[in-house]
């Protein structure tokens, strides 16, 4: 130590020698955080090979130097005693936790043998599902190369309603693919946003917004987290947000406070819809011979809707040149929402929001959008070639996430929110919600999903998770039955863009539509909090066929930690921690782009594993080579890629397009499209492990119709054509499904689903009560029950963390104080929470800031005893609980085959639709949660956790 850095100071009270200027560590490495899904940049300081300190990277566009509680606790995830240490082969019964430690060679041989047999016979018998991983562009590609359509990640129970609702409406979406204009918005309305999501960007944004005096309104049944700092909290009843939004739409239309200019220029409001009830073209757009949608010019009649300068009618009924009748989208839309069903008085009681308040909020939105409009002195050119001297901004912004998403009416609610934005002219304008790169994309983007034809030893060409345009794109057989085991892209979930992970094990267990041979899971805790009903899932994972074989014969599981799912697998492939591996936050998946331009990032190993573990992506690439998947072997059959970093640099999905967009080309001078650059990873590391493109000011807004932006996006390979992306109020793909249900076309839904498809594939947003409410006696279950996610714990990723579990070690059931007291409940009472599907015992905390008809708890704090290397007396399993035990993955009993408890359009798991009753438990029952399944046994080779932790990486 340099003596000059040791200042000796004597003070009045102390004689202390203080090392003021000790260097933080002896080395610092940049990488990307993975304590949640936000992808913040971090600097990891190392001291003698140990992690001294993890801090936010000040230069990183996502977090700009800040780091949340989860990210700051990375050290304790990295060194957690729950880390798996070597590959394992099950030797006892499933669930027993009896494993033998094996070598990687043996593990790879076992996996290869199982997978090879499946691939040689019927590749569909592999179901490969991943959790909140960030390598879906690799895992999805691998699955297609394997030849199974049965691939997805966790989006089916997370956000597919938001993704589908957005991409089929505005060509982007909330959360991943959009953000409020934090610097300029004057009014932000946030719907149902979990407190851990987009964690640092939202907090940074809210702080700036509040400092500027903008108004922040939070619509959420629970007043915690972001809602706590809102200027106005609207404690809405769960599942009624769509109704509330439609009442706002009603008010804007009724008071004529809509941006008709915006609607005419940027949406399909003026497009003509054919009116031919009962006909095969009813509800489709009137098009010219070239297929271009038509609008009605006041002087010239039907014209290509993109004709510059035309004066389109918004209301009326017109006769097309071929004699058919047609009406503009605007007319049909306005007629619906002006109806009495959507008047504030009609919805107030169901929403738990007064009519007066709904009218006031609508007036506030309009006042900010129209009376406080922003005009930027920024010329730009639209797709018709017209030069605009300024950019007009409607400074009202919206943001929404799981409170909308996790309901069975979430898709339409999300579409309604986007419609509200369009009516206010507040899509990608200064001060409004904006697209994050690589969006906007065409509506819907690209071709439909691949996987219709499956053959042994044959890859599937195309994307397994893509965008149906109509019935022809569904993955169903001639009888209309699902081709995917999760039934995504079938008539049960036509826009199942993210798959239905929550149905895979149930469907496979029931052999509906068919059984599987191998279930391959990566960091998806399906035996506990990632299952809607963990008891049923563990039953199915241990169930046997009459011949004695397990119903799902092989389960392969890759994870870094001893989660609840480990004991239920046959082969464990232990992953590294996030600080020990390469990762790629890719434009082919979910990158770190923002409204300011494209961006992507990597993780690099900052420490070497001290266990016999391997990065999952390396393992997957090696399995690909062992199986001879064409993209993973060279012509001579040898492995094409050495490891994941080799793949990241050299894999090309299309010529010149690979996992990373920055520093492409031999010399690193290209962005987006360019030859592989052998030096690419070094360039990323030198830049703090991220790459970011900066759009020039004229491309920052109106991206859906901004010629310079669209030209640039095409040049970078983000979109196929540089054409205007017309926002879709009326959704023709949905109408195509509806027409099929009405008996038109070659592909029609099976009879039992006909009415369902007709009802829910409405081309305009609709609201209906959550599906499962229809099949039960709601008087028996008067309360809504939802989960929230705390800011300091991400799902199940933090219970093995010695610091985070001190913050959230056991969850309570939170109830509205007055409502609970009316039910005879008091603070700290133990209660039974009973639903139609099951019951959970837990302890209550009373509060003010919650919708009176709603109870809630923190998600995934409750753990199964023994898992995550926690002692059996740990509060996580003794007092903490999962609400999931009361949720069913199926809708209430009905005629015919069971249907998933999910959104009928997207298949999104509807776990916020839960209804319960709460009753005080008998005195003898208090003190411990229930159900409390028997403790899990940890693999024998895990070291015992310490009783005392004195972590100190200092000198």
């Amino acid at each position, binding site marked *: 130590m340099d003596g000059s850095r040791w200042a000796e100071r004597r003070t*009045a009270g102390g004689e202390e020698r203080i090392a003021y200027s000790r260097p933080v560590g002896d080395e610092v490495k940049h990488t990307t955080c993975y304590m949640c899904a936000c992808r913040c940049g971090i600097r990891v300081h190392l001291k003698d090979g140990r992690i001294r300190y993890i801090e936010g990277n000040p230069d990183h566009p996502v977090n700009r130097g*800040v780091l949340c509680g989860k990210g700051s606790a990375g050290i304790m995830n990295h060194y957690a005693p729950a880390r798996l240490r070597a590959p394992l082969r099950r030797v006892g019964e499933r669930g027993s936790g009896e494993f033998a430690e094996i070598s990687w060679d043996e593990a790879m041989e076992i996996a290869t043998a199982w997978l090879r047999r499946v691939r040689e016979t019927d590749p569909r018998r592999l179901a490969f599902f991943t959790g909140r991983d960030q390598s879906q562009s690799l895992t999805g590609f691998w699955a297609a190369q394997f030849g199974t359509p049965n691939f997805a990640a966790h989006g089916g129970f997370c956000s597919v309603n938001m993704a589908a609702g957005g991409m089929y409406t505005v060509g982007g979406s909330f959360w991943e693919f959009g953000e409020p204009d934090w610097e300029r918005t004057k009014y932000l309305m946030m719907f149902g946003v979990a407190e851990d999501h987009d*964690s640092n960007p939202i*907090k940074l944004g809210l702080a700036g917004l509040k400092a500027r005096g903008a108004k922040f309104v939070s619509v959420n049944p629970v007043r915690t987290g*972001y809602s*706590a700092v809102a*200027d106005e909290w609207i404690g809405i009843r769960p599942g009624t947000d769509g109704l509330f939004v439609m009442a706002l739409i009603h008010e804007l239309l009724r008071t004529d406070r809509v941006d008709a200019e915006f609607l005419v*220029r940027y949406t399909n409001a003026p497009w003509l819809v054919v009116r031919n009830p009962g006909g095969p073209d009813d509800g489709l757009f009137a098009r010219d011979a070239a297929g271009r949608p038509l609008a009605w010019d006041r002087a010239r009649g039907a014209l290509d809707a993109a004709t510059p300068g035309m004066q389109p009618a918004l209301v009326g009924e017109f006769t097309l040149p071929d004699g058919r009748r047609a009406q503009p989208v605007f007319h049909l839309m306005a*007629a619906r929402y002006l109806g009495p069903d959507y008047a504030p008085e009609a919805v107030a009681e169901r929403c738990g929001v007064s009519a007066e308040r709904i009218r006031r909020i609508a007036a506030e939105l309009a006042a900010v959008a129209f009376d406080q409009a922003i005009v930027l002195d920024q010329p730009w050119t639209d797709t018709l070639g017209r030069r605009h001297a300024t950019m007009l901004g409607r400074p009202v912004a919206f943001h929404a996430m799981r409170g909308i998403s996790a309901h069975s009416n979430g898709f339409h609610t999300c579409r309604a929110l986007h419609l509200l934005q369009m009516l206010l002219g507040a899509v990608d304008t200064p001060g409004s919600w904006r697209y994050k790169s690589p969006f906007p994309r065409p509506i819907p983007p690209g071709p439909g999903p691949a996987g219709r034809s499956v053959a042994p030893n044959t890859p599937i060409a195309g994307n397994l998770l893509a965008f149906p345009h109509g019935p022809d794109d569904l993955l169903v057989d001639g009888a209309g039955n699902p081709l995917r085991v999760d039934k995504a892209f079938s008539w049960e979930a036509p826009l199942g863009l993210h798959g239905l992970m929550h149905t895979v094990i149930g469907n496979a267990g029931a052999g509906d539509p068919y059984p599987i041979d191998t279930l391959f899971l990566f960091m998806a805790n399906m035996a506990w909090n990632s299952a809607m009903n963990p008891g049923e899932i563990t039953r199915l994972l241990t169930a046997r066929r009459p011949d004695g074989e397990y119903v799902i014969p092989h389960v392969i599981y890759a994870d870094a930690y001893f989660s609840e799912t480990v004991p239920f697998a046959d082969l464990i492939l232990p992953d590294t921690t996030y600080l020990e591996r390469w990762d790629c936050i890719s434009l082919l998946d979910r990158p770190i782009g923002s409204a300011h331009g494209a961006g992507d990032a990597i993780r690099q190993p900052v420490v070497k594993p001290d266990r016999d573990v391997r990065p999952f992506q390396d393992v997957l690439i090696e399995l690909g080579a062992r199986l001879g998947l064409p993209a993973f072997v060279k012509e001579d059959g040898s492995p094409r890629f050495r490891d994941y970093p080799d793949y990241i640099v050299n894999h090309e999905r299309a010529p010149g397009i690979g996992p990373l967009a920055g520093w492409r080309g031999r010399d690193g001078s290209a962005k987006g499209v360019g030859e592989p650059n052998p030096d690419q990873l070094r360039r990323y590391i030198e830049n703090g492990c991220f790459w970011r493109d900066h759009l020039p000011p004229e491309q920052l807004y109106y991206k859906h119709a901004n010629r310079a932006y669209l030209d640039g996006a095409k040049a970078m390979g983000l979109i196929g054509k540089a054409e205007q992306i017309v926002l879709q109020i009326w959704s023709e793909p949905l109408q195509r499904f509806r027409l099929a249900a009405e008996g038109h076309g070659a592909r029609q839904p099976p009879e039992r689903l006909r009415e369902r498809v007709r009802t829910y594939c409405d081309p305009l947003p609709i609201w209906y009560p959550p599906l499962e409410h229809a099949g039960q006696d709601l008087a028996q279950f008067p309360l809504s029950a939802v989960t929230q996610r705390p800011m300091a714990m991400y799902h199940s990723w933090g219970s093995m963390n*010695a610091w985070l579990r001190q913050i959230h070690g056991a969850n309570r059931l939170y109830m509205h104080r007055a409502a609970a007291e009316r039910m005879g409940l008091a603070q700290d009472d133990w209660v039974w929470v009973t639903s139609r599907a099951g019951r959970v015992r837990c302890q209550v905390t009373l509060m003010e800031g919650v919708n009176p008809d709603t109870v809630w708890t923190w998600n995934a704090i409750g753990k199964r005893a023994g898992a995550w290397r926690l002692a059996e007396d740990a509060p996580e399993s003794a007092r903490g609980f999962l609400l999931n035990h009361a949720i069913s993955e199926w809708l209430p009993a009905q005629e015919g085959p069971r249907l998933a408890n999910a959104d009928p359009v997207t298949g999104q798991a509807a776990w916020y639709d839960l209804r319960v009753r709460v009753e005080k438990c008998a005195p003898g029952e208090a003190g411990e949660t229930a159900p409390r399944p028997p403790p899990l046994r940890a693999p024998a080779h895990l070291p015992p956790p310490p009783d005392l932790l004195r972590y100190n990486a200092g000198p």
Partner: protein
Amino acid sequence: MTSLPDPPPGAKKLGLVIDLDTCVGCHACAVNCKEWNTSGHLAPLPDFNPYAAGAEGVWFNRVHAYEAGEGEAGRTVHFPRSCLHCEQPACVTVCPTGASYKRAEDGIVLVNPETCIGCGLCAWACPYGARELDEDAGVMKKCTLCIDRIYNETLPEAERQPACVLTCPARARHFGDLGDPESAVSRLVRERGGYDLMPEMGYRPVNKYLPPRRRAAAGAPPQEAAPRAEEIANPLLRWVDRVLSR
């Protein structure tokens, strides 16, 4: 008993200003503090029963959440709590060994682990609950205001701030010299009505809290033009004659 220094006129009073308007209770400050300090000047910050029941560690900074007021008019408050580096710190004057002391040059209250006997008197005296006993080492520990960061010449100037301040995602924490009326933190306290925690106790905390800003007012009730008769019959008619250009 330990005596307090006689600070020279104009001496620094380093401290924190914490904004309760934007604190969302995320615990970033608490955890980042823990991770810095467990390998810092008062290292380590131990955790007892870290993977079992009764997990309890030493934290220099803790965040509390509570509700104020009733119903929708109420408020959920997130309240970060750490040493306030009082000008009249009872924790110092009560210390029998002189281990607990207040520095003359910058006002920081520290504990010298070499002379602390872990008697706990300071924790008893502190009304803010800011003292944390390391039962394993038998030494009292507490917020040092990241004394090994704020004067650390190996750090870039901009990073010579407490870990909790740099990491706060809601930018709700500010560090500076509250003895200088023209410092950014002093101005912030003036502009936002920053206040002392429990001033009636007389300990004169240096740290200040900023109260929630006045919430944006609800807009006036909507004023509507009286709809024309034909609009009442068919509200769509109002758009019939609207001339709009593509």
